[in-house]
């Protein structure tokens, strides 16, 4: 439950770069006013991004998006999160449907007054906790280092 302790910053990333509040904004412009961002956003193209932020607006996002490293980062997230989402939603719906339509099975006694339905319910708690823990571990190992490296690279203006 504490991914930060598990990872630590990757060697290339200096301490504190994950504090986005201070990062790319030019210090000469004190706290970009909401107005300035919004005004720029009302032009025809409707760029909703913060144009006072030079580092951001000058970045080649399409190039970055198509890069090998970003592809790896995206895969690290999607190939984990998408199948797992389908799996736990299916598992939950299976439970709902069994409760509804498989009364006989769910009513089977396991021990004492505890039946299959109850065990099934507790199993939903258990899988939820496990998936949360598993994702935290996966993200700390496979997602965070990649994300931080790419972010540092973009901030350096490469």
């Amino acid at each position, binding site marked *: *439950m504490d*991914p*930060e302790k598990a990872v630590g910053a990757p060697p290339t990333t200096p301490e504190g770069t*994950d504090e*986005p*509040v201070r*990062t*790319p904004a030019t210090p000469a412009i004190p706290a970009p*006013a*909401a*107005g300035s961002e*919004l005004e720029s*956003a*009302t032009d025809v193209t*409707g760029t*909703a*991004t913060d144009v006072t*932020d030079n580092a*951001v607006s000058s*970045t080649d*996002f399409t190039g970055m*998006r198509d890069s090998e490293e*970003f592809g790896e*980062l*995206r895969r690290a997230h*999607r190939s984990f*999160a998408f199948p*797992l*989402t389908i799996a*736990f*939603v299916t598992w*939950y*719906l299976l*439970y*709902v*449907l069994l*409760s*509804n*339509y498989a*009364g006989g099975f*769910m*009513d089977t006694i396991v021990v*004492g*007054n*505890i*039946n299959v*339905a*109850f065990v099934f*319910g507790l199993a*939903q*708690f258990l899988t*939820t906790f496990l*998936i*949360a823990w598993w994702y*935290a571990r996966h*993200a700390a190992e496979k997602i965070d280092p990649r*994300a931080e490296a*790419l*972010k540092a690279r*973009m901030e350096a203006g490469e």
Partner: protein
Amino acid sequence: MIPSTTFTHTLAGHPLAAGGAGEHRTLIITLFSVFVAVTLGITVWAGRQTKDATDFYAGGRSFSGFQNGLAVSGDYMSAASFLGIAGAISLFGYDGFLYSIGFLVAWLVALLLVAEPLRNSGRFTMADVLAHRLEQRPVRTAAGTSTIVVSIFYLLAQMVGAGALVALLLGATGEGSRRWIIVLVGLVMVLYVTIGGMKGTTWVQIVKAVLLIAGTLLITVLVLNKFHWNLSTLLGRAAEASGKGRAFLEPGLQYGKDGTSKLNFVSLGLALVLGTAGLPHILIRFYTVPTAKAARKSVNWAIGIIGAFYLMTIALGFGAAALVGPKAITASNESGNTAAPLLAQEIGGGAGSTGGAILLAVISAVAFATILAVVAGLTLASSASFAHDLWANVIRKGRTSEKEEILTAKCAAIVIGAISIALGIFAHRLNAAALVALAFAVAASANLPTILYSLFWKRFTTRGALWSIYGGLVSSVTLVILSPVVSGNPKALFPGLSFDWFPLSNPGLVSIPLGFLLGWAGSLLSRPAPDQEKRYAELEVRSLTGFGAH
């Protein structure tokens, strides 16, 4: 949060069963006043530190993952979770427990798909993320509208519940005192939001979450101790006392009657599991932490805390069934909403005993604190969306100062407070639970598809977003109006009329797939904007790396 429960029918004015709350009133009022005084103190302190929009909307993004995890839990565990689930389990046994599961599993959607990219690519509201890649004015209008609609339904449910519950517990059963209590709750919540902003509201949530967990843990320990820490004995005794025997521990007591009620349960289950990640007051909490990593950490803490809490509802609900018994519970409140306070009284030594009085007062005060905090979170979410999305970006077209935007948010909080006070007073016959279920269904139908498509689907367009949001919103609200909740039976909002053409009381089964379908169809039937490709590339990069995050 429990669609099966109604606060409505509690207004007739039963005093709290056996023993009455009268003699404990002073204690309850004292404890509650202490809570209000302490939290208002925190609010004033937080208000002094609130200087710019980031402070007001996002608490300066200064909270840690753990702090925000507590606050998220505080925002999520509404009075209906605490009182409603305990009540539902105590009356319907196993079927009540099903809700706890849906509410918890739902968090995985937020964890795996929504929390981190939202934190990385948005500033203050859900619409910020959509505005990245779509035409911002129409999508902000749509997202702002659905945010306000979801929040007001949720708010109204809490206000109706608060009025009924407070009146019931304090024994102030007269119509006049109930109104005054609703006004009081409304005023305090407006104070929290306007003075303390997100920082103050977050601390209120943290205090409340700690109190709620501590109170629930205390009762759980006492109940389990009474049954020698043997779950099977507790379940057996509950089944015995329920008068329903083994059926009490099996699915179907409440939802197994016929094909329609079974479909109703599937519909509800779908709305619960997909609604959470679209609830605006939950989504804006992810902006209060500095990084996506901290957002992930807060969801993980929330899953732990909320999961532990829902596990304890087993002891609360079955404990109430076994120790208080369904007769005494329904005599106090026919939908079971007072099961938890009654259990507290019983486990403390019974009505009339000092221990019983103290525990009853403590648990009731915790319930009030819960209502107040949730209501404040909802008010903040809707006023933030009004000021940031609708006022600053749509009405004033971005020509506002930060100061004006915050002032607008504060005014909006006052207006929303006034609206919910008025609705709470005049609409007290409404079924609070149906309103919350509607809020979940609307969130799942209108907000979730757009959020997911925006983040993960390249071909998504502005038209897709508008179709999905408005389609999900209109279809879910319309289906509820045409459902048995509103007319056609004695428990409905308008019992005398009958236009209940839609058989299910929760619209999720139809409106959620419809929301996803409309988003897909609208996108394919429109041409992407010329710069669509570029803007989606930017959103993808920002949402995954956190580059340029606010």
